[in-house]
């Protein structure tokens, strides 16, 4: 779909971002942004998960192969995980995934891991703005146009 947008050169590219937010912190942070009426770009499609540590790299790879321009993973701040150490494990997985993205020749900047607590509605909105702009600069996911994967 990002291709379509590119056909109209006058239109700005609106990246599609899939977001995996942990139930205890980041999802609540996003919720707070909403209930506080803090504006942020609507480019993210949020999927609630129980913990950032439960986000198998497969989910991220699938989103990217299906053509998502970016993937966001949000977890509790280090030390604050509801399950004690899920976010530390998420961080290790992210390092491994970055390795595999390298093989795929995909910019690792397309996948973000950030810590956002339940009280950080403003931070969530700011991060969304920052990520949307960053992915917009990177351009559409080059995988999106490949149909033979």
């Amino acid at each position, binding site marked *: *779909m990002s291709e379509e947008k590119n056909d109209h050169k006058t239109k700005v590219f609106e990246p599609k971002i899939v977001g995996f937010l942990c139930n205890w912190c980041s999802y609540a942070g996003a919720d707070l942004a909403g209930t506080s009426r803090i504006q942020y770009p609507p480019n993210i499609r949020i999927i609630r998960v129980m913990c950032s540590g439960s986000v198998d*790299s*497969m989910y991220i*790879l*699938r989103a990217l*192969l*299906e*053509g998502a321009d970016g993937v966001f993973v949000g*977890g509790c701040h*280090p*030390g604050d995980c509801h399950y004690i*150490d899920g*976010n*530390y*494990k998420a*961080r*290790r*997985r*992210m*390092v*491994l*995934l*970055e*390795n*595999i993205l*390298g*093989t*795929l*020749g*995909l910019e690792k900047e397309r996948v973000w*891991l*950030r*810590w956002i607590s339940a009280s950080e509605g403003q931070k969530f909105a700011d991060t969304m703005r920052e990520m949307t702009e960053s992915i917009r600069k990177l351009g559409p996911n*080059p*995988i*999106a*146009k*490949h*149909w*033979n*994967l």
Partner: protein
Amino acid sequence: MTQKALKVQDQDVVRSTNEFLKQLLSSGKIQALLVPQSTPSKKVVYPVLIADPKKLHADVIAPVLPVATATMISKMTKIQPPSKPIGVVLRSCQIRALIELVKLNQANLTNIIIIGVDCPGTFPINIYADFPEKKTPTQVIVDMMTQKTTDAEQYLRSACQVCKDPIPMNADIVLGLYGTDIEKEIIIEAHTEIGKELLKDLNLENEKEGKTREKAVKDIREQKDKKRAAFLKQTEGINGIEKIAEFFDKCVNCHNCRQACPICYCKECLFDSAVFDAEAYKFIRKAENKGLVKMPSDALLFQLGRMNHMILSCVECGLCEQACPNTIPLMEVFIPAAENAQKEFTYHPGKDKTEKIPMIVYREDEFLEVGEK
């Protein structure tokens, strides 16, 4: 470590190693042996569990690895390990795979005596079974080891050509083929107390000179490292979505590679589940998004997903490549990926029994650049 020597009779290294194993099994200290042994057709050598010494016809040199022996040991120790010791004869890659399976709670080393064999490498199963030369594959390998000919090298599987650990680690007993003229003598090493105890009463000679083996082991490592560096250089180009998509073009999503892999142990693989079946409109929407979509549409996701799940424990045995019905040279992607990922976590699969797999441990002060910028 104690080093002893096994005299080889009539230059028949297979028979002599078999005699050694027979002595071991007859000693009564172990109740069974898992050894590589020819099927009656002599076409393939399989891991065979032997309780009766009279039926033992092991061929520890035969250059073929039809299945992951580590998986076989997982199958017979996971539910309940043996109550008395059994010996398992393994190549280096299979010992490493076994150690990884232990770490993954898929195998139990209680009462398992690991007998490692120096590995000269293996041939693809099809070449071994229908060998194009007059000599047997075993003889060709023996000729390579005794530096008579180098014919064997052309048949070696790519994984074996660039193997970084042909010498067994974590074994109780090692049958040393490097650093000796194997048509005259084989080196037998005991690396643990159990190994020492088992060798005590066997008919072996005390080895005098230990230096030749050390040097030969160093030489073979250097030789393999050089080949490995060249291999990594040569495969650098397989990178980027176009090249990767082309590389996996022949993948029909049959999952044989996963079946053959000693590390892939999940009883229910996500890729066999109904996750990828969906209502027609979802497929149509996907086709509409890209204009068209290949079916099955998850072959690359399977490859990358599998890679992501097992690459840190990948022992580079190359059985995935051997299992591929469409001969995709999987090692060209998996060895560089394993090299990179394992370097990132400074992890050497199969080396240290007490080290935990990287995905279940963490440090608070590591990878700080990931997560917050």
